[in-house]
């Protein structure tokens, strides 16, 4: 059995992420889950698009595809259908997955292609300097929403459930143990597994939204995460759910027909 550290490309570290950026934590959790699977490095492929989040495969010692912006899932589908024996893991960002890559996202979920997709949702375009993304919350500041975003945000996990993914979970870069477990379950589930990770981008999100310190961002995620079971209970009781909360936990686990499952 390998350990998470055996998968790291140590000659590329330290990575380019800013101080306190949550992307590095998501890499740790993903590698910890993968090392528990007993997979070989040369049977595993990481695929990503463009963005800070999408640079993750560059720090991992396997073959990988760093593709064009938004197209990670299209490339990953190709890899999986051509070689179903490979384990395919996708790293993507909220902009990459839900803005330019939105169509690939829903159709990969609909086709239920056998792969695991980890989305680092920092609610912003981090790499290009902080433009608003489809997950920027209403009222939040970004370089393209100087008066606060006037649009409603996508709930990526709910979108994946509606589009047909077999496994969907959401956690944050603070909930490291729960996140690792969710990714491990996703890796084991045939069909498309989607794990959304709320991730802090102190540089381009926190700085503009009164969460200047990394600890402010972590505190915000900790206090605004609402367990899905609790949310369902509150709803059934008719108790209103406080503003700004997001659900965490396992949203769905099912066995719809999947594509590209190893024979």
């Amino acid at each position, binding site marked *: 059995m390998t350990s998470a550290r055996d998968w790291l490309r140590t000659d590329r*570290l*330290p990575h380019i992420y800013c*101080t306190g950026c949550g*992307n590095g934590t998501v890499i*740790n959790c993903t590698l910890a889950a993968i090392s528990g699977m007993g997979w070989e490095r040369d049977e595993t492929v990481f695929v990503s698009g463009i963005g800070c989040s999408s640079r993750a495969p560059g720090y991992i010692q396997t073959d990988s595809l760093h593709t064009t912006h938004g197209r990670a899932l299209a490339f990953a589908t190709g890899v999986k259908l051509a070689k179903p024996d490979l384990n395919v893991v996708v790293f993507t960002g909220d902009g990459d997955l839900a803005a330019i890559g939105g169509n690939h996202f829903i159709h990969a979920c609909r086709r239920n292609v056998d792969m695991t997709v980890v989305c680092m949702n920092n609610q912003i375009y981090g790499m290009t300097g902080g433009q608003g993304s489809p997950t920027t919350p209403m009222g939040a500041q970004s370089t393209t929403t100087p008066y606060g975003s006037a649009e409603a945000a996508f709930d990526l996990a709910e979108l994946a459930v509606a589009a047909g993914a077999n496994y969907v979970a959401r956690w944050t870069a603070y909930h490291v143990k729960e996140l690792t477990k969710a990714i491990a379950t996703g890796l084991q589930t045939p069909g498309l597994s989607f794990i959304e990770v709320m991730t802090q981008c102190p540089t381009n999100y926190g700085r503009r939204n009164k969460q200047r310190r990394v600890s402010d961002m*972590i505190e915000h995620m900790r206090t605004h995460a609402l367990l899905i079971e609790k949310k369902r209970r509150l709803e059934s009781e008719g108790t209103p759910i406080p503003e700004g909360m997001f659900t965490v936990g396992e949203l769905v686990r099912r066995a719809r027909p999947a594509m590209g499952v190893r024979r």
Partner: protein
Amino acid sequence: MKLVIDESRCKGCNLCVLVCPYTIFQEGTKPNRRGIVVPVLDRPERCTNCRLQALYGRTLCGVCQMICPDQAIHWKEEEPYEAHRVEVEY
């Protein structure tokens, strides 16, 4: 086992300070050679993983290592007869 921060990787975000249940990590005060204020360890021998990893054969707690975005925290085997600070609690 001994807890160590790799100063060539740490960027001084203090996330480890936030999560350690024993508050072993404390915010540093002095910048190092790279200009980074690395946290300092307060009596790291209290760490569960340092004490019990060998006995249980797996990582215990380990949240600092998991959350450290810069892969800067690890445990290292101690040298034989390494000097220890002894503290008598009463």
